[in-house]
């Protein structure tokens, strides 16, 4: 097609010319130079004018145009055409309307065809591009869906070997390689997992192992011995067949390091046994997968570590033979162990995460948490009885509670541990029973023997001669000895099993000494020994078990008598200690004395020193052991002194003196609260429980009453007008005369902080209003007990 423009002149602008004009205008290679018609109103002229084509009334003018190539005349007469020929240059073609029309139609057609051809070419070009794009998109979609699959699979529990198999399948969908190698390093243990469609020849395996280890070593820059790598091979039905295995030689190895946050985990690689050039797309896909695999492996590692630790913790919790309950600072149960479930008959799922007050739990347990919260100190212990909700089994438990702090010292929770001591209590009870039974079984026949002998001896059953009397005397003495032995054994066994309870009363030591000495005066005369006393004046009374101390003193004096041939036994009393807070009682003798080496043995059971000397002395060897136990139960001490053999000895013991006044039976409690109603209800309740109660309606009144009546415990409301509880508490704690009186503050529910503040200025505990009367009583009893 030539690009040459054909310049056209149209002669004759009648009706027929109009379509011609219009059509010509649309043709790209035609330009209408002008349209001529002698008639002014010829329609073609108007149209030409609209289209911006020059119009002429005189056709000769139009024909003068130099560039003219074609003239179309519409007369249809041949003669006109020849006229026109003479007017134009010879290379201008003259065409009549009909021919023009035909040419036009042909030209139109051609134009149309050209357009179609060009648009067809465009479409082809576009569709080619589209096709390309489509393919790319498909590829991307495949990638994405594969990645999606992998990440889903990775997030579930997936064995590492299965991972390798999975990756193999994924990669094989896109890339034609032979073996997938996954090299993992874990604490100097190296594993190589090889996945392929067929079995891998050993030399190939070796080579892969060497190369992977080598590359990994280069990556972490430390030597990795390929022989230390344990190889795991797996054959997987992957897509396609990795035929290259038949010629086992690595032609190409594409590897990528597996790492998370710069921590090396291993390497993965594709082994090619034939020539293969990876496209950038394939490389990128492999890369993305590598990242995924690395993340998966690391996550798996972390999961395993967590599982391991959790299992450890669970084992520890399981093997604890105590029940464990932990609450956080919001009073929610955050941890219980399986033993707790057994003791209480609850299930973890039922109570974990729930508030202590709302959950169904034994009252005794809730009470324990309540108490430790209301007190200042960190620890609390109590024996409680617990019954399982489900099976009704009752246990006696020792409960130990402790507050838990974070590194800043804030209380973040409380731990409760319960130990089942039901068996111990049972054993205790059995011991007591045993002692009582044995006691009876031993003493009853002895009583009969003694009485029978006695009846004969004192001649109630008739006269006895001298010999009979002698033998009866022997019998009596040995009965007494046996009786003493039984007593000592039972005493000792009672003491050792903790069964002894001291009956304390106020004891005048000097008076006691005189009593005991009196008992020995006859024996002293018989043995021709001097029995002296040296008693200090003004000794305070001691709180002691009179009969037991009597026992100790008697033991010491009787020992002195045993080991003295001739001489003196002296019993003395006096103060002991710089602060005079002990009373000392000593029994000294001028007897055989004690060697240094024997001092240790003295107070041990069944020890007697040097049988030759003691053959004359009777005794069980238990006396001093028992005395030691008794003295130590009184919080005292017992010891012996001697300069050596033949130089006599001195046995002493000390007992603590308590200067305080004896406790009154009824405790006095002072309630300080500005609410008269509260005062009266609390007073009524406490009095019903055996306390003396005083009340005060203001801080000042409270302070006055404390000074006047010296109560044993103070209940103090914090919110009071004029002088509030804080001030009262501060003043009480600052004054030495009142600081020892336990103070329990009362606070409203929203003001626990205030209560904690009170604890920090010295209050012993707090109760939150509204409180149960039981809590009040319990708290009061606890604090009163501690004061003792």
């Amino acid at each position, binding site marked *: 097609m030539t690009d040459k423009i054909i310049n056209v002149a149209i002669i004759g602008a009648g009706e027929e010319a109009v379509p011609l004009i219009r059509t010509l205008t649309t043709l790209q290679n035609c330009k209408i130079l002008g349209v001529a018609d002698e008639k002014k109103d010829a329609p073609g002229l108007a149209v030409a004018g609209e289209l911006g084509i020059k119009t002429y009334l005189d056709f000769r003018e139009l024909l003068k145009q130099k560039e003219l190539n074609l003239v179309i005349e519409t007369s249809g007469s041949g003669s006109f055409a020849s006229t026109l020929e003479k007017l134009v240059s010879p290379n201008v073609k003259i065409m009549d309307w009909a021919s023009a029309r035909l040419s036009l139609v042909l030209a139109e057609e051609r134009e149309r065809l050209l357009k179609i051809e060009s648009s067809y070419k465009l479409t082809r070009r576009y569709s080619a591009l589209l096709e390309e794009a489509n393919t790319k998109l498909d590829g991307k979609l495949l990638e994405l869906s594969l990645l999606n699959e992998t990440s889903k699979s990775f997030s579930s529990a997936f064995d590492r070997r299965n991972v390798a198999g999975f990756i193999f399948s994924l990669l094989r969908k896109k890339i034609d390689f032979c073996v997938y190698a996954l090299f993992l390093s874990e604490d100097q243990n190296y594993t190589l997992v090889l996945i392929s469609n067929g079995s891998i020849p050993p030399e190939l395996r070796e080579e892969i192992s060497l190369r992977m280890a080598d590359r990994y070593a280069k990556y972490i820059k430390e030597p990795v011995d390929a022989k230390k790598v344990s190889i795991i091979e797996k054959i997987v039905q992957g897509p396609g067949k990795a035929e290259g295995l038949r010629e086992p030689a690595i032609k190409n190895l594409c590897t990528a390091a597996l790492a998370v946050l710069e921590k090396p985990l291993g390497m993965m690689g594709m082994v090619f046994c034939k020539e293969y050039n990876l496209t950038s797309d394939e490389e990128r896909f492999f890369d993305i997968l590598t990242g995924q695999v690395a993340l998966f492996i690391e996550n798996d590692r972390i999961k395993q570590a967590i599982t391991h630790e959790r299992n450890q913790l669970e084992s520890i919790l399981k093997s604890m033979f105590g029940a464990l309950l932990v609450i956080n600072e919001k009073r929610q149960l955050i941890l219980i162990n399986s033993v707790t479930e057994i003791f209480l008959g609850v299930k973890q799922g039922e109570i974990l995460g729930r508030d202590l007050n709302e959950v169904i739990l034994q009252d005794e347990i809730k009470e324990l948490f309540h108490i430790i919260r209301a007190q200042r100190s960190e620890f609390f212990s109590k024996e409680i009885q617990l019954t399982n909700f489900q099976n009704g089994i009752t246990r006696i438990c020792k409960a130990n509670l402790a507050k838990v702090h974070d590194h800043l010292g804030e209380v973040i929770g409380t731990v409760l541990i319960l130990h089942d001591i039901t068996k111990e209590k049972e054993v205790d009870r059995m011991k007591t029973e045993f002692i009582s039974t044995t006691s009876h079984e031993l*003493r*009853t026949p002895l009583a009969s023997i003694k*009485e*029978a002998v006695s009846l004969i001896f004192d001649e*109630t059953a008739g006269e006895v001669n001298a010999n009979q009397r002698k033998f009866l005397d022997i019998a009596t003495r040995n009965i007494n000895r046996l009786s003493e032995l039984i007593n000592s054994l039972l005493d000792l066994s009672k003491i050792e099993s903790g069964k002894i309870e001291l009956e304390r009363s106020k004891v005048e030591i000097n008076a006691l000494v005189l009593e005991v000495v009196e008992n020995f005066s006859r024996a002293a005369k018989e043995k021709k020994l001097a029995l002296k006393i040296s008693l200090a004046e003004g000794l305070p009374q001691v709180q002691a078990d009179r009969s037991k101390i009597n026992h100790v003193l008697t033991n010491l004096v009787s020992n002195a008598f045993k080991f003295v041939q001739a001489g003196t036994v002296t019993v003395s009393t006096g103060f002991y200690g710089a602060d005079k807070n002990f009373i000392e009682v000593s029994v000294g003798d001028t007897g055989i004395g004690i060697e240094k080496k024997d001092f240790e043995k003295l107070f041990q059971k069944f020890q007697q020193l040097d049988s030759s000397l003691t053959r004359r002395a009777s005794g069980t060897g238990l006396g001093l052991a028992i005395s030691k136990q008794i003295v130590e139960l009184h919080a005292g001490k017992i010891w012996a002194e001697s300069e050596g053999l033949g130089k006599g000895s001195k046995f002493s013991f000390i007992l603590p003196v308590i200067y305080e006044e004896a406790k009154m039976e009824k405790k006095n409690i002072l309630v300080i609260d500005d609410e008269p109603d509260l005062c009266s209800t609390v007073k009524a309740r406490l009095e019903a429980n055996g306390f003396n109660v005083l009340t005060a309606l203001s801080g000042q009144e409270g302070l006055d009453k404390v000074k006047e009546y010296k109560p044993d415990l103070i209940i103090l409301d914090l919110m009071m007008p004029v002088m509030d509880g804080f001030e009262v508490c501060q003043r009480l704690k600052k004054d030495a005369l009142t600081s020892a009186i336990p103070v329990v503050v009362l606070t409203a529910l929203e003001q626990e902080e205030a209560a904690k503040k009170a604890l920090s200025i010295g209050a012993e505990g707090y109760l939150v209003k509204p409180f149960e009367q039981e809590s009040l009583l319990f708290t009061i009893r606890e604090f009163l007990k501690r004061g003792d």
Partner: protein
Amino acid sequence: MSKKILIIDDEPDLSALLSFRLEAHGFKVISALDGPTGLEKAKSDKPDLILLDLMMPGMDGFQAAKILKGDPETNEIPVIVFTAMASPELRQRVSEIRAFDYITKPFDPKDLLEKVKKALGGGDELRLGAGYTGS
């Protein structure tokens, strides 16, 4: 008229020995080997004093004492109990059953006679505290 003493004790030996001694001192003695028999004899023979062993099989001394003290026919008779073990708990329990006094085995005959005489000598049963001469 000599005083009558009832001994309730499951040990026949001891019972025999005690009877002998007490009779030698001019008392009349009847005995029973268990609680129920003892209670019967207390009602039928109306003794002036009962010596009661605490540890007996079947009905023990505590139960027997409770019944004796609960029965208007017998609650006036003073009771002295025998026991192998003295302890604070025991003393508590003994005062609960309103016994006159207690004696530990093996006993001192002099001690026994003293207590018997005291119990029969118009002594008040309810002498708790001061009434206890046991060691």
